[in-house]
């Protein structure tokens, strides 16, 4: 694990001047991940905030080879790049080593891109897939996704007389990918940069597919001040809403244990999208969210200790 000082001296593959919002979690996540690479990389991105804000023709923020194809297929597209790499290396047409990283938002990963990602995991391509999970379709203007927590306001799960935000629970994508039995799966947060960098390095070393689900706070969609991104990411970790763990070749390990497990309401109350939950009639949603977090945390602890 390099020191922060060492990382700060590395050339950045993700250049400033891109047009992601101030305080965007995704840009911080991408910087941290690319700083963890030592071998040349080819990066792919699903359609989404990251892609549209970093490649506005004739500009590009990528100081490495980059491909965007469509929304649901970044996993498949990069699997094609990785396959080409293997055969061209075998046939002696390229000599250098490469690593492959696919980025997708939660819409492009939990929902429309899930099939392509599952296919990649099953086929065993050596590539790292990063989901930057900002918990809604932010690029199209904050619509609910399979990653949106229960109770969250979005433009397609609005709050009204007959609605307290999203009615359904979010899906546990990390668990879905773990079920594919690939070499390396982890959950991470940009607030624990050293944890994310270490996990990225482990993932890139894995001889097969790897996946990291990274919480990526979004000031616009979550409704908070853009200076609070890292604090909100850490609150999600400290409330155990977003536990940091890894499954390395089948071995579960908690990579960070909060000193004190905070109530989930501490994270919720900082975000405008959950404001309505603090009204008396909606308090049951917070209770349900807390119960879910408690149960999932206990399950995770048992797995990591067992």
């Amino acid at each position, binding site marked *: 694990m390099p020191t922060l000082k060492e990382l700060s001296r590395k050339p950045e593959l993700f250049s400033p001047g891109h047009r992601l919002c101030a305080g965007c979690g995704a840009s911080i996540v991408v910087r941290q991940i690319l700083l963890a690479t030592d071998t040349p990389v080819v990066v792919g991105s699903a359609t989404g905030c990251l892609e549209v804000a970093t490649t506005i023709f004739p500009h590009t923020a*990528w100081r490495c080879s980059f491909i*965007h*194809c469509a929304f649901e297929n970044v*996993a498949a597209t990069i699997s*094609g*790049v990785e396959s080409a790499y293997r055969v061209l290396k075998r046939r002696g047409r390229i000599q250098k080593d490469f690593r492959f990283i696919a980025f997708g938002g939660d819409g492009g990963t939990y929902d429309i891109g899930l*099939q392509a990602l599952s296919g990649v995991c099953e*086929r065993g391509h050596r590539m790292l897939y990063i989901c930057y999970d900002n918990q809604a379709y932010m690029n199209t203007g904050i619509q609910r996704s399979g990653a949106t927590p229960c109770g969250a306001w979005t433009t397609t799960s609005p709050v009204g007389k007959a609605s307290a935000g999203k009615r359904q629970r979010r899906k546990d994508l990390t668990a879905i990918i773990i079920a594919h039995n690939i070499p390396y799966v982890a959950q991470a947060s940009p607030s624990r940069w050293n944890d994310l960098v270490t996990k990225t390095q482990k993932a890139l070393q894995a001889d097969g597919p790897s996946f990291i689900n990274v919480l990526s706070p979004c000031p616009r969609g979550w409704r908070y001040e853009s200076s609070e991104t890292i604090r909100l990411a850490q609150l999600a970790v400290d409330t155990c809403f977003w536990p940091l763990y890894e499954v390395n070749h089948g071995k579960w390990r908690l990579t960070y244990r909060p000193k004190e497990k905070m109530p989930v309401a501490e994270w919720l109350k900082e975000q405008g999208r959950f404001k309505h939950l603090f009204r008396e009639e909606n308090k049951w949603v917070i209770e349900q969210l807390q119960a879910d977090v408690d149960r999932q945390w206990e399950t995770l602890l048992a797995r990591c200790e067992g």
Partner: protein
Amino acid sequence: MGKVVALEGNQAAALAMRQINPDVVAAYPITPQTEVVQEFSQFVADGLVDTELIAVESEHSAMSACIGASASGARVMTATSANGMALMWEVLYIAASARLPIVMALVNRALPGNINIHCDHSDSMGARDSGWLQLFSENSQEVYDNLIQAVRIAEHLDVRLPVMVCYDGFIISHAVECLEVLEDDIVRNFIGELEPVNPLLDTDRFITYGPLDLYDFYFEHKRQQMEVYPTAKQVIVGIGKEFGSLAGREYGLYEGYLLDDAELAIVTLGSSAGTAKEAVDHLRSDGLPVGMLKLRCFRPFPNTEIAQVLSRPKAIAVLDRSVSFGGFGGPLFTEIRSAMFENETSPHLLNYIYGLGGRDIDVEDIEGVYKDLQRVVDTGNVERIINYVGLRG
């Protein structure tokens, strides 16, 4: 000269793929294409090719993987049919816009409502505006020859576009025919090595594929892309000639059959051209001045060439193996009719929809069309412009 073998159309396609030995093949099984993937998988298993075969989980991922691999600088092939092609539809445009020389065998099958696994051209026609070049094949020989030429056409530095080689599901794909095949090394010398253009796997020069392209540049980029298609026509003709000198079978944009002095002509695509040739022979022996134009190259569309070659006939029937719901006639008819508009002659132009969902068309059906044309010429009266052949009731 090569040797003569008896193969099904799909086997002929797989054989061409074996000889091409592409860097990457990404494909998903669908009837009637399945055999191509099966045969090729066996070639991989037997070590006859050292291709990376990606057995993807959908056709959308097949084309996406092809795009990633092709952008990396690999020679890439795939094969599909009907719904598979429809699932790729979104990414077909991306492959063409990124100027990626992917070669696809498209085994033509009806694109349902009401599932049907048999031949028509609705899948090809759905992709006609995607930017892919489209070559149609009359028989297994042409499937084989077209696939080999398609690699050269796609990768030609003046073209750099994906090419689909279309052939009729079951009628060609599952019928055993004799064809002449070339020696492996002759094929490999003919196709040569792929020259990568802007590959992702280059550490000296980074490239960004698929940027956000807004109203300030997008239009110019589409206009630039339009520029390549007239050039592609010339390249297709050039490579068809070169292949001819190698294999003894020369290819152009189209094939005219007894067209020079024909007064009644049929225009068609695919396997029905063979049936039409038989009908032409019959009617010629009866003294009728009939001929046939088989279009090999549907994209780019050879409009000026067609207008010229069809300047003599007084009546022309365009056979369409697909429909354009709500449009005026089938896709081939509208293109031919448009191409003919600049001609000083104005022949009667009729459209015949046939063979949807695998309905057979036989020699008598086509003779009937010629007789219709004769009647039109004799009476000067067109009863119906849009007609159906082989339809019950």
